[in-house]
């Protein structure tokens, strides 16, 4: 019960200290929101504000080019406007649009017909938005493929294209007789197949009942490539992120927990400088009880931060895949940082020295562990270094529960490392406190 009173007293002191309370509660919320807004885009999962702004220049003005425009508009990741070529170029140069697409004249006549020379579709991208450019290229290919597929599903249009191709072949002077014969035979065979298939669409009882033509020369369908991408690759990881808050809130939780560590690690030095440690030591308490009371307060504060950030994150759109695993990661993280707090608490004798050491250690841990920039965005060697930071294991565990879809066995290494660090920190803290000269 005394441990509880000690912990409640420390929590009360923390909340009464406006600056301390800000670093534990306010700062992580602000960080979570700030980074969440920054991470919108590649990790947005299709939110309206995460769309890539592009402008389309339609120099063809055929039903096919309009169909391509409509297809791009239907892409949930794009916000599409039209403009003339000069306006489009200017808006991209000014950074108002991420990119531009020019549909050239002749596109409608040739798109999807391999025997026709293909006019060049141009893509211009803001150089500072390379990732969006790559995504735009993929989306354009997808739209063109859909358009081609649709063209093949319309027999009349396809037969008309074949007629045009045969006429063109007949009038071509630069084609050798052998090639002309080969291509003409091929086109005639295709024409027969298309006509036969079209006739088959009449029902057996003589009623005209046109059904969809299912030639499917190019059967394009969307597939879930999450399992196909290497899970450790940036793309593979980003594909699993469903909301920017999935990334920003684990980071923000860590800053709240670091605030707890900084606040509570100073509290022993503060008790010493204010003389209250003497009074505590005059009470029927052991040194270990005093330290455990601090640890309990820090542990509860860390859990409170995680709970608060989870509630806020869920309210904003973060949907943890497993609350049970998130709780396990949260408990392990809290225990780990209680150990770190206990070590920091006894390293310095004055509030200033503990505060300086504590925040310096926090910054280094955060820098390498993914507390500032997510580890997946770091260079390879820094990613290797990050494994030495408890922040890395904490974020890994929390992300494992929120969006990485870890199994229990995948979560276990992170939890084990965190518990181990917590035990070591607690041991060092208790040992040094007992050895402190009176």
């Amino acid at each position, binding site marked *: *019960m*005394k441990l509880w*009173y*000690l912990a409640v*007293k420390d929590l*009360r*002191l923390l909340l*009464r*200290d406006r600056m301390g309370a800000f670093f534990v509660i306010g700062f992580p919320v602000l960080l979570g929101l700030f980074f969440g807004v920054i991470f919108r885009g590649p990790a947005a999962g299709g939110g309206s504000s995460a769309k890539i702004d592009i402008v389309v220049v339609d120099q063809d003005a055929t039903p096919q080019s309009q169909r391509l425009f409509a297809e791009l508009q239907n892409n949930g990741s794009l916000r599409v406007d039209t403009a003339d070529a000069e306006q489009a170029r200017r808006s991209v140069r000014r950074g108002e649009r991420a990119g531009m697409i020019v549909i050239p004249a002749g596109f409608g006549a040739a798109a999807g017909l391999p025997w026709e020379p293909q006019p060049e579709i141009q893509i211009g991208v803001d150089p500072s938005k390379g990732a969006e450019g790559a995504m735009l290229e993929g989306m354009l290919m997808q739209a063109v493929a859909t358009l081609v597929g649709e063209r093949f599903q319309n027999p009349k249009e396809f037969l008309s294209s074949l007629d045009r191709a045969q006429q063109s072949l007949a009038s071509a002077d630069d084609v050798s007789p052998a090639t002309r014969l080969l291509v003409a035979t091929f086109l005639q065979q295709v024409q027969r197949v298309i006509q036969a298939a079209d006739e088959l669409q009449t029902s057996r009882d003589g009623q005209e009942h046109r059904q969809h033509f299912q030639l499917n020369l190019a059967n394009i369908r969307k597939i879930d490539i999450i399992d196909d991408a290497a899970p450790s690759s940036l793309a593979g990881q980003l594909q699993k992120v469903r909301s920017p808050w999935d990334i920003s809130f684990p980071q923000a939780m860590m800053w709240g927990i670091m605030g707890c560590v900084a606040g509570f690690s100073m509290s022993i030095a503060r008790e010493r400088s*204010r*003389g*209250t440690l*003497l*009074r*505590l*030591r*005059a*009470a*029927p*308490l*052991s040194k270990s009880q005093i330290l455990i009371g601090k640890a309990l307060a820090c542990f509860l504060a860390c859990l409170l931060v995680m709970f608060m950030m989870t509630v806020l994150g869920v309210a904003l759109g973060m949907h943890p895949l497993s609350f049970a695993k998130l709780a396990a990661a949260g408990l392990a993280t809290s225990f780990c940082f209680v150990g770190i707090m206990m070590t920091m608490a006894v390293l310095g004798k004055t509030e200033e020295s503990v505060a300086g050491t504590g925040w310096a250690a926090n910054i280094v841990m955060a820098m390498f562990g993914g507390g500032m920039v997510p580890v997946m965005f770091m260079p390879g060697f820094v990613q290797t270094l990050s494994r030495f930071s408890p922040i890395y294991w904490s974020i890994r565990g929390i992300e494992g529960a929120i969006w990485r879809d870890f199994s229990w066995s995948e979560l276990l290494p992170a939890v084990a490392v965190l518990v181990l660090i917590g035990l070591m920190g607690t041991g060092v803290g208790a040992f040094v406190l007992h050895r402190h000269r*009176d």
Partner: protein
Amino acid sequence: MLVLDRIAKRYGPVTAVRNVTLQVRRGECLGLLGPNGAGKSTTIGMMVGWIKPDSGTVLLDGSPPDRTETRRLLGVAPQALSLYEELTARENLRFFGQLYDLRGEPLRERMAWCLKLAGLEDRADDRVQTYSGGMKRRLNIAVALIHQPKLLLLDEPTVGVDPQSRNHIFDWIEQLQSQGMTIVYTTHYMEEAQRLCDRVAIIDHGELLAIDPVPELLARHGGLSVIVGQIEHVPADMDLPGAVTDAGWRLEAAEPFESLTQLTHRGVRFRSVQIAGPDLETVFLKLTGRGLRD
């Protein structure tokens, strides 16, 4: 009640306390008098169990003070204000009371008693950081009393306190004494020791130089009283004892009133006379060769 038997404590080359032996009797107020750095606070630290002596033993009611149950007998008001300034007086009292296993009604009663004693009933729910120095000092002592200790250790309780609060604290201590509480009171103000303490232990350089009731200390180490005055008339045939200077007449005497009576009978007339008896300052000066505030 409290026995210190040849306790010693060194910090590197510095000897903070050197073989101090003393006993604190139940119900008495023992003063530890000495200048800053004399070893008073280290001695208090060993009495409480904060500091482990290098040698010697400390026993409180027969047990070492670092035992949990023994600590329940002790109330300590450290020299530094030992309060949580972000908490209110009531919260401070409740927290420390809870550490001594006080709960419910008994805790509420003790809190009310302490607040009344400290004169803080009206400010009980204000944060300590808004208090004056005197109020904080009073609360610092009140917190030490929350669990009704048998032995109260007050380490320089009047440092930095205004005269009004100082008198308030003196009244308290006398009240607690009259209730039979045992008190150990460290100070470097001889007036406080002289007013409050049944016995005074004089400490310097970590050594216990003397321990006795104040009158005995004065009698044994205080020397003679000093009479200072302005002479109006001395009979012509009389050889006036003492020394006459521009500032007046000065005479040291064991029995100053008797000496003055004899001189008056022999025809000496005085314009003014002052008698200064020996005090603890004199005692300290005689025992250490330096003043308390040197």
